[in-house]
């Protein structure tokens, strides 16, 4: 009886700790999407720019950020200011550095996804819009972008789901998100139970995201 009580108590404690960390996980997830998608669009624009310097810079950016580990980028953004310029940015900077690194990294992937979507549009759509008198920005926002969103949604969904799991990398900067707390609880309890519970959290979150993304995809299936 006592043993069962003990198990329930531990489980409850683990849950409380993970839920506290889950807030950070959500924050990293949400803020990263908020910043990386517009930034990705911007880099995509730059990558497709007719000005060689801009295009080259964006290519290089994408190549480096996709070609090096996200964990390394996290460490670099966090420790960089101190080791390079001897600037100490305080404890809050852990979280800020996490958001910066995640946003920069995901923007590189989004940029390439958007580029694929934009380049898959037929020239005829631009031409029809042009002769009808639509301005460049009207053409982009009314004609091109809505169709691009539909086309890139499956790839963007992939990235969003990966991002949920990648938030666990914030552990290297000791941001007390869910995975950091799960690790701590696991070593304290000498048990894998916290990891399993954390895994269930991640999976539940992704199930919900999958459900939402499927709904969005369906809402755009009225045309092909």
């Amino acid at each position, binding site marked *: 009886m006592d043993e069962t009580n003990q198990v329930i108590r531990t489980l409850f404690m683990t849950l409380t700790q993970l839920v506290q960390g889950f807030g950070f996980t959500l924050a990293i997830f949400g803020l990263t999407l908020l910043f990386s998608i517009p930034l990705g669009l911007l880099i995509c624009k730059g990558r497709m720019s007719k000005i060689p310097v801009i295009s080259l810079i964006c290519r290089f950016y994408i190549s480096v950020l996709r070609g090096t580990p996200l964990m390394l980028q996290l460490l670099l953004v966090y420790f960089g200011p101190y080791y390079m310029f001897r600037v100490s940015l305080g404890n809050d900077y852990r979280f800020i550095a996490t958001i910066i690194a995640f946003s920069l990294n995901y923007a590189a992937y989004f940029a390439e996804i958007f580029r694929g979507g934009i380049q898959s549009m*037929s020239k*005829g*759509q631009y*031409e*029809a*819009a*042009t*002769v*009808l*008198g*639509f301005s460049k920005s*009207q053409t982009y926002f*009314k*004609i091109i972008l*809505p*169709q691009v969103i*539909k086309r890139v949604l499956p790839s963007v969904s992939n990235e969003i789901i990966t991002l949920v799991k990648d938030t666990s990398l914030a552990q290297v900067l000791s941001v007390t998100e869910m995975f950091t707390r799960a690790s701590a609880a696991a070593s304290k309890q000498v048990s894998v139970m916290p990891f399993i519970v954390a895994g269930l959290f991640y999976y539940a979150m992704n199930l919900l995201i999958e459900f939402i993304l499927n709904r969005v995809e369906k809402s755009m299936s*009225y*045309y*092909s």
Partner: protein
Amino acid sequence: MSDVNNDIVLEIKDIHKSFNKLEVLQGISMEVKRGEVVAVIGPSGGGKSTLLRCATTLEKVDAGRIVIGGDVLCDEVDGHLVYCDKKLEKEIRSKFGLVFQNFNLFPHFSVRRNITEALIHVHKKSKPEADAICDGLLKKMDLEAKADEYPCNLSGGQQQRVSIARALATNPEIIFFDEPTSALDPELTKGVLTVIKELAQEKMTMVIVTHEMSFARDVADRIVFMDGGVIVEEGPAYDLVTNPKQERTKAFLAGY
């Protein structure tokens, strides 16, 4: 930039256009009068489509003069090609309509929105006004029941008729057709050609690039035969088809 004749809706004078080293248009001149229907025929690669694309601002010429509805799109000034500014270019675009071979309807817009979007957001018409224009055109195109459908649910012929309605919506002075039936099977071609024929009877000014020889003969006032980047022969439609003068025209028409 000199005087402009009001009865001439389209004036093209000695235009040249090259892609890389290939000169696709080697000095084309033509005039289209108000109410006139001109068919442009000729083998593929002869420059027909490029001519149309230059006249509709989708390509820039290398030399020559183009005047649409009294506005000078481009002209030679002291031996240099000068294009009009963006503002006039936009003005010129409201004076013509273009119907593409592949329709190029906006797939994410309903039929109604395909027709009204430019009316509302470019020509600043109110929604009821735009809707009224749209309803009138759909009736004319025999597509009244399709206003709320999306293009993907229509046949090719219906899609092309929607795109003709879209081109007509802004009440242009001239409509260009770039092989409007080449993407359609014969059954669907008929409906589209009927619509164009009706427009001809209403004295709509039109330039039609087409491979439908009997249609060109019956509907056009004049036919222009292009090959190798030049106009080989032109004349009244019936005469040119039944009694071509040039050997190249004869050889081309013999294939039909």
